[in-house]
């Protein structure tokens, strides 16, 4: 019996009234071609008007085509740089570093401008993966609307000489008079920057540095400090765990190091002929995260119940291992079973917790320690250098600012006026200072409130280094000359300190001093430096650390706060989570990220209050109503299946007011609800008050496009069934294979036959591929209104299917791109043969031939074709990156920017196929498997996508397509797609 899958609540609750149904898009404004419609034809003047229009269009076409061909100039280099070949991309290794986020990357440079970011596969942390935010970061480089182009004084542009003079004399004055200067930074994973700041602190007496993170991980450090006397975040090893238990940690989406964890996680989840075992993942959470969606058991629980379960679990484990118990309150959950599983998997379990709550983190530490997971699934020898924010110091700073005890305040890469929960208080404090400086690259709330803005380079214009995890070094190098008159923050510091060197030299010096001695491979520093720069990374051999000693008595102090938390059960609470695309909101002006639909709710361009259907009913609300929470923020509610009852979840990162054209006032700022609590920044709390304040909010959802209509689009099974029969859950495939009959001749692929395989078991739904595709293929951004009209242009989308009950559904993600059918329904109906089959199995679209009848869109059973309803480039109505000279610099010159009126879709990144083939031809050799990598395949952090040539019998795809788990979408239609899917296998405890 097939499981029943559903895509939206309406589908399983047909009694819902029409309110849920989205309004039909209003009909288009009357156009000249309306004269062709029947009603107007009745009028006597219609034919004449028609002739007029014909005449005018004919005439204008004549004039345009008869114009002289423009003279085009070809301007060569004066001195051609050796490494640059016009028309050929150059790749540079660099690093994406934004506060607590890090990813080693390769930057594709075409004729001097970076156009695409890919993962650095030399890094053993990310193994070539990226996430959506990393992929999109190249666009923010060209954000000429929001980036500062010159230094600013009181919001007027000025020059570096003037600002340097003014600021330096004031800094010296303050320093001489014993004043207090504070530099606020997020956690800096760059060792060289840290040491430079230390030098600056020495140079300017009175300067102090406060580290403050918008998304804080301070509780993990505090808990380790308390239980093990070590201020660390240990290195998590999901790949070594057979049992993963996560308490609200969205480790595949946003928590700590998602790219690294996705790679590790996928390793334990991937099934092959030779590896028929996988980890079990149990998730407790109140809001629906993509991590929860991937879990084998997901328990939607109220945060209070989560605390109770954690305490009960601790007690069970402590009992079994002979440690003192904490006296956990009773809980309505089968903790015994959970404890049993953990004890069975001693040393192979990983318990993680996403709450920034010291008490809960200490319990997790205890469980992990008592079951021997430390030094197995948690490595203390390679801790993370992120999450070092000191909330307490920042709270004191806000107080001191208010009292006027700070003379100068400097903000580097931080935007507390947006991230802090009391922005007015902070703003007043900033105004109290004599000197306020922001080093922000682009416009933000804090920079706009500061007296001086000394714009930093974009990270793609900067030198930098990173040591995200101990011993894992990486370098960042500039890949383009600074676009504007900006200066790197570090260079500014060096100038102020009257040093002769620039940061590039400083960086080299630091590496020579600190990093170079740790290696033995290269005999001289220059060689080492060049190699490190070329590879982008340097990984130091791991060192031994002393073993941990656990002190359970430290729990006694903290446990009361967990118990208080547990008492909240039954109350309505809120919890805040970083949005998958927005994270902390610093890239809010990136239209690619704004238009990335949340994989669970498929809402783009918005945040919302997610409520469970039960709570929604209880509160007498319906989807689209606006509510005011805690008198602070007002936002629309959304019915989310699988949301814990009595819990409102809100995504962070929206509601920026000074981000720029694309990001201003999209959604609301949920940071305003965050709190300072018991030494940590807390992202959850009680809803003291709420009221309905409006209704009928229209979400821009991509979800209601299509329905599954009871067909086996997603196929899944369980591990025990799979182990018995690898084709479990995929019985239909054999049936359709046996009943293949056709009247039509097949295709004969003599050379290549390209195919793409998608492993639904590895896919986490992180949506990286969506942005990678957009970046590679010049896909336009259409805006909230057009998304509402279902005109989103993404060539690739993540379909999400629910199954089970609305209270606790399971979720399957399915990446969907053009299936490149051998018997493609779209090809048969094109009246102008604009869409045809290539000799290599690609379903091709020729834009210059397309006349836009959209028959192909109608006939495509997968709904992957997109129509250009408008001209999206250079159109004021779509004022995103394609409407600015700078924004268009990101366009891939190897892909046509499509015109209005043509259909487009996934091409299997044919430009990359052509490129790889040409390379092989020129090198006079056969094409190797894995040489052609489409953008989606390259970007995937969990390697769920594999591309290759089916005609090469040794290729990975050729082997995967033989896998009994392989099936094709809508096989019954006999479209013969070349995209194959491997069934989803879950590993639930029987």
């Amino acid at each position, binding site marked *: 019996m097939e499981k029943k899958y559903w895509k939206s609540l309406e589908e399983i609750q047909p009694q819902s009234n029409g309110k849920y149904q989205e309004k039909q898009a209003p009909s288009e404004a009357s156009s000249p071609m309306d004269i062709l419609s029947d009603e107007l034809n009745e009028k006597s003047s219609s034919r004449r008007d028609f*002739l007029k229009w014909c005449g005018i269009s004919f005439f204008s076409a004549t004039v345009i085509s008869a114009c002289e061909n423009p003279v085009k100039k070809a301007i060569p280099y004066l001195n051609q740089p050796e490494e640059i070949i016009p028309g050929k991309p150059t790749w540079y290794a660099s690093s994406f570093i934004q506060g607590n986020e890090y990813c080693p990357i390769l930057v594709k440079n075409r004729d001097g401008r970076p156009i695409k970011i890919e993962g650095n596969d030399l890094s053993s942390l990310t193994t070539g993966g990226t996430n959506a935010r990393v992929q999109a970061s190249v666009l923010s480089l060209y954000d000429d609307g929001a980036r500062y182009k010159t230094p600013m004084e009181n919001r007027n542009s000025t020059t570096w000489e003037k600002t340097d003079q003014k600021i330096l004399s004031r800094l010296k004055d303050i320093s001489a008079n014993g004043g207090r200067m504070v530099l606020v930074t997020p956690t800096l994973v760059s060792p060289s920057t840290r040491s430079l700041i230390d030098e600056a602190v020495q140079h300017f007496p009175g300067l102090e540095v406060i580290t403050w993170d918008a998304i804080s991980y301070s509780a993990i450090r505090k808990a380790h400090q308390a239980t093990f006397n070590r201020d660390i975040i240990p290195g998590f090893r999901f790949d070594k765990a057979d049992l993963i238990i996560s308490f609200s940690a969205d480790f595949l989406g946003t928590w700590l190091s998602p790219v690294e964890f996705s790679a590790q996680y996928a390793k334990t989840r991937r099934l092959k002929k030779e590896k028929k075992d996988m980890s079990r993942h149990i998730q407790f959470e109140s809001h629906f995260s993509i991590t929860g969606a991937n879990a084998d058991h997901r328990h939607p629980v109220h945060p209070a119940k989560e605390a109770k379960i954690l305490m009960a679990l601790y007690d069970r484990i402590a009992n079994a291992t002979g440690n003192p118990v904490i006296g956990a309150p009773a809980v309505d959950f089968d903790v015994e079973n959970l404890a049993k599983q953990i004890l069975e998997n001693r040393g192979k379990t990983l318990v993680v917790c996403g709450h920034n709550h010291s008490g809960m983190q200490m319990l997790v530490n205890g469980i992990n320690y008592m079951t021997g997971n430390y030094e197995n699934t948690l490595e203390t020898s390679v801790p993370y250098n992120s999450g070092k924010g000191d909330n307490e110091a920042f709270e004191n700073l806000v107080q001191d600012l208010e009292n006027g005890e700070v003379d100068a305040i400097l903000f580097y890469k931080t935007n507390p006026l947006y991230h802090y929960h009391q922005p007015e208080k902070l703003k007043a404090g900033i105004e109290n200072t004599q000197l306020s400086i922001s080093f922000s690259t682009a416009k933000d709330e804090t920079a706009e409130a500061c007296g001086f803005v000394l714009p930093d380079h974009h990270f793609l214009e900067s030198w930098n280094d990173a040591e995200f995890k101990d011993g894992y070094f990486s370098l960042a190098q500039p890949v383009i000359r600074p676009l504007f008159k900006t200066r790197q923050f570090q260079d500014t510091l060096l100038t102020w300190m009257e040093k002769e060197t620039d940061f590039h030299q400083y960086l080299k010096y630091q590496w020579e001093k600190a990093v170079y001695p740790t290696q033995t491979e290269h005999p001289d520093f220059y060689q080492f430096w060049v190699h490190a720069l070329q590879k982008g990374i340097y990984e130091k051999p791991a060192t031994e650390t002393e073993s941990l000693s656990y002190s359970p008595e430290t729990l006694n102090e903290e446990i009361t706060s967990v118990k208080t938390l547990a008492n909240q059960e039954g109350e309505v609470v809120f919890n805040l989570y970083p949005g998958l695309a927005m994270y902390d909101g610093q890239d809010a002006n990136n239209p690619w990220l704004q238009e990335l639909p949340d994989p669970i709710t498929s809402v783009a361009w918005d945040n919302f209050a997610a409520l469970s259907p039960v709570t929604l009913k209880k509160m007498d609300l319906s989807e689209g109503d606006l509510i005011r929470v805690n008198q602070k923020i007002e936002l629309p509610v959304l019915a989310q299946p699988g949301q814990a009852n009595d819990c409102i979840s809100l995504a962070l990162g929206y509601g920026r007011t000074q981000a720029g054209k694309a990001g201003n006032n999209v959604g609301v700022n949920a940071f305003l609800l965050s709190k300072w609590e018991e030494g940590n920044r807390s992202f959850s709390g009680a809803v003291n008050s709420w009221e309905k304040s409006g209704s009928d909010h229209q979400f821009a959802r991509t979800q209601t496009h299509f329905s599954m209509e009871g067909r086996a689009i997603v196929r899944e099974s369980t591990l025990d069934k799979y182990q018995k029969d690898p084709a479990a859950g995929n019985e239909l495939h054999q049936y359709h294979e046996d009943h293949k009959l056709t009247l039509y001749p097949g295709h004969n692929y003599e050379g290549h036959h390209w195919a793409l395989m998608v492993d639904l078991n590895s896919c986490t739904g992180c949506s990286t591929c969506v942005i990678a595709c957009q970046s590679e293929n010049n896909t336009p951004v259409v805006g909230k209104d057009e998304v509402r009209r279902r005109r989103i242009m993404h060539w690739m989308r993540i379909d999400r299917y629910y199954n089970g009950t609305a209270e606790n559904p399971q979720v399957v993600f399915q990446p969907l791109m053009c299936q490149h059918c051998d018997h493609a329904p779209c090809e048969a109906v094109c009246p102008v043969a604009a869409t045809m089959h290539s000799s290599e199995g690609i379903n091709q679209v020729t834009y210059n031939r397309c006349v836009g009848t959209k028959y192909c869109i109608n006939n495509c059973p997968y709904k992957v074709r997109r129509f250009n309803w408008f001209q999206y480039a250079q159109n004021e109505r779509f004022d995103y990156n394609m409407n600015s000279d700078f924004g268009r610099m990101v366009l891939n010159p190897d892909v046509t920017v499509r015109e209005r009126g043509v259909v487009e879709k996934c091409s299997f990144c044919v430009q990359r196929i052509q490129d790889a083939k040409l390379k092989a031809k020129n090198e006079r050799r056969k094409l190797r498997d894995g040489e052609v990598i489409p953008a989606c395949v390259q970007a995937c952090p969990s390697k769920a996508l594999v591309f290759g040539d089916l005609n090469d019998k040794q290729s990975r795809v050729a082997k995967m397509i033989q896998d009994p788990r392989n099936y094709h979408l809508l096989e019954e239609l006999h479209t013969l797609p070349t995209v194959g899917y491997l069934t989803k296998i879950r590993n639930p405890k029987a």
Partner: protein
Amino acid sequence: MRKKPAPNRKKPRNIGFGIFLSAFLLVAYFSLVSFSRENPESDNEEPPVNGVISPEEFTRTDLRKGERLFKGLVEFESGIHDCSSCHYTVRSDTMNWNPSAYELAKQWISEENYSLKEKLENPVGVRMINDHEGMQITEEEEHQLNAYLAKVFEEGRGELQVIPVNAFIFWGLGFLMALALIDLLITRKIKVKAFHVLILIVGLVVHMQYAVAESRSLGRTQGYAPDQPIKFSHLVHAGEHEIDCNYCHQITNFSLSAGIPSNNTCMNCHTVIREGTHSGRFEINKIHQAHESGEPVEWIRVHKLPDHSYFSHAQHVNAGKAECQDCHGPIEEMHIVMQTEDLSMGWCLTCHRDSRVDFLDNPYYEIYERLHNDIREGRIDGVTAAEVGGEDCMKCHY
């Protein structure tokens, strides 16, 4: 079924009006295209470099005298020298190796402390010495010549004078046809009606022929051969001196683009070779000027494909072993580069269907087992590009 609309009295007139309008537009269309085809190149010459010197600074007498001196109409004190016989004052479509009057003027404007007298009386280089030996001008004459050059500069390079033969034929025939029609219907002066019919038939045939030819070549620039900023001759370099194409266009083998050589490539030889056989030092000096000023030379692009087609030189030259001349014509025989092919899709496909790929020698093609078998068994003796996917849309359009 919709009811048939009631007959409309106005209808015939509307149709007549429509036909008239369409006919009018058709004629306008052809006339426009036939004019434009004569001169595919339009010039957007840059404004004066510094604009310090303008003809207003000179008296009318100076201007007039200067022009006459330059054109050899009046004598210099040292005798008659017709400058304009070498330094053309009107734009020409044939190669004149000597700098034109405009180019001299431009040089004079852009160079500080430029003294015409000094340059003339101390010629450098074989070409210049031969032609200017013994020439002497007075300071007054120099002033007058300067006046004329300032005027030349202000007037700009000038339009290339081309006689629009096609347009004459087109409009002439149209006029004749109109006359024939009027006479046939209204005036009826000529009684032999076959005469009118003959004119109308011939006229229509010629017009149709123009229409077909013009619409086929719309947007194509076959025969385009613009003046380049430097009189660089492929005939001299590639033809006479047999320099390999790859020496200058070295990225052809690796890149989409063949690459216009950068200035430093020119300098490889021209640091030593300061003087050309034909052009003397004037043209080669431009390379040095670019090198010194840091302003790259702005060449005029001759061959260009539409934006929606992706063409890779590396694919054709390196993998496909095509010769440059296959697409660019006998480039080694051209002083001025001309687009010899129409670069249409039909032209591309013809070649893809006819030309053979490097099938047996390039291991890349080993994947085509059937074709290899056919060759082995003697069924075919080669493989064309079209047989290995050279006709797929997405080989060029993506």
